[in-house]
């Protein structure tokens, strides 16, 4: 092969690879930025909760307004039982939002008893594409165990089940938001 063809080929190939990488990276950052508002609102609500705990004396009053503002998204029964701050007495079942992933929707439900997550139930898991079901069945128990021990959505994603893990975490976080945890 002539040097010109080799040089041109290498240069063009490198460009193509770089562009491909950029496109992929842009997509990933787009999906994280769309999920960032969710985490943002999460930290916001936890922030308001902490301010609630800060003004401990007027706890119930401020809680009433804060739970009222979050009640628009949460189930009425949940908001009724939801108590703030220490969050010690939240109980009930909270459904997370359905998160669309590349391999299908993911939705989890948490069971909360006295402010503690006692169970995480996967209502829907990735099921599109040949291996997805297999991966989901493998990943779900691991994610559940992690969530129960962490008592939050700050859990490691399961390698080989990245999409499932992402969807799981997102849905879990929205369920925690509803529960006000």
């Amino acid at each position: 092969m002539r040097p010109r063809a080799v040089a041109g080929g290498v240069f063009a190939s490198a460009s193509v690879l770089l562009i491909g990488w950029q496109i992929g990276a842009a997509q990933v950052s787009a999906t994280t930025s769309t999920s960032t508002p969710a985490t943002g609102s999460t930290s916001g609500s936890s922030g308001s909760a902490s301010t609630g705990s800060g003004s401990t004396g007027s706890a119930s009053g401020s809680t009433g307004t804060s739970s009222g503002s979050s009640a628009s998204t949460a189930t009425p029964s949940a908001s009724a039982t939801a108590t703030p701050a220490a969050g010690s007495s939240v109980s009930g079942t909270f459904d997370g939002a359905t998160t669309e992933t590349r391999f299908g929707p993911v939705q989890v439900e948490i069971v909360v008893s006295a402010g503690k997550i006692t169970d995480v139930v996967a209502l829907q898991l990735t099921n599109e594409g040949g291996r997805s079901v297999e991966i989901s069945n493998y990943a779900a128990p691991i994610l559940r165990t992690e969530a129960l021990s962490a008592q939050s959505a700050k859990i490691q994603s399961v390698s080989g089940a990245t999409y499932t893990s992402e969807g799981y975490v997102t849905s879990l976080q929205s369920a925690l938001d509803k529960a006000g945890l």
Partner: protein
Amino acid sequence: MTSTIELHTTVRLPPAPAPRIEVATRLRRRDRRRRNAAVDALAIIVWVSAALAAALYLASPGAHILSGGAAFVTAAGIVAGLVATDLVLVMIVLAARVPLIDRVFGTDRAIAVHRSLGKPVLYLILVHGLLITIGYGLSDRTNPVAETISLFTTLPDMPLAYLSLGLFVAVVVTSLVAVRRRLPYEAWHVIHLLSYAAVAVALPHQLSVGSVLASGTWQRVYWIALYVLALGAIVVYRFLLPILVTFQHRIRVVAVEPIAPGVVSIHLSGRDLTRLGVQGGQYGVWRFWTTGTWWHAHPVSFSAVPSENHARITVRDLGAGSRRLSRIRAGAFVSLEGPYGLFTAKARTAPYLTLIASGIGITPIRSLLEDSVLREGEATVLLRGSDPDQRYLWNEVADLATVTRSEIFAMIGPRPSGADAWQSAEDWNRGVTLTSTFPHLLESDLYICGPQPWTDLVVRDARLAGVPEHQIHQERFSS
């Protein structure tokens, strides 16, 4: 010999006076630049297509959230599979006899590249299967054997993928030089056709199991387009076009003329044969539709430039199939793929022309000389035979040399037994070389056609004498 029909091809006078040397040189330099640019562009397209295959993966979100060793092993496996498939499609296009590729690169060189890709691509496919099995196995915490079983049994299109792998192995193994030599051409060819099946049955698992080509992605659209392009090239240029050419020109055998022991000229009639656009030095792939011969395709050079209704090829019985050709009767229906080849005056790059032919290699040299517009003394012809029986068509070439005012030499006798030489033993001892035979050797286009070992020796001597690579032209007959 025939006496009733006039079979001898009439030697045509050059249609126009040869252009002045400067003009011809300038035009050739321009043509060569264009051909080189086209070849480089094609090479770059191949590079880019391979890079694009890898980029498909890089552009998928999965490539950006890798964690753990297993994920990286799987990722490498995915990229290997994508690049391998892309190269398989490139190989198909190279074998598709695409006119552009034949015109700028030559079908023989395209096939040589096709062949050189075979083994590396098979390795890539094997690496793909191996890495993905290991990668999945690591993330599922199972061993590769158990993972293979689970892949085979639980996923929808994986049995087809394994079938494809098996077919690729069979195709490449039967194409290894050592194995292929033991196989009849037809057996090899039938097995080789399985590569289309291999490519086809590999597709479902790429689309269903893999996530890179998931439905709704542009990657999937691009990938299917590649498949359509490659297989479309095969369908159009290897099936539809030859059928069209065959029915348009209605070629039939007029007579089979023995011209020497074991050598026959087959005279063909047809309609509008000049519209085939055959240039002197090109060949066709011929099929004679009689009971004993229809299943055998013969790559044979035109031994004369076709006229309106008449064409001629000259064949030596090199194999069982060719031997049967000498018994073909007049009236047999003939199908043609082609014309192919860059062994033509269009490929010239230098002010002088040197033609060297040995044995049946005379046929393209003869039609090339017939189709060349030459100044006096521009061309020098050397005809080589190992014995006087091998002087096939020499009288015709001598006539053409007279008409084109070219010099012509003959060299008869076996090669020296002790030395690697293309000359006859006698001339070898006298010290005859390319340089001593052709005074303008270094400013010449060298067209060499003969048995491959002999041709290789001539090419070696030409290179040693300092003839630039682009001035050396040879046609390798092997499909």
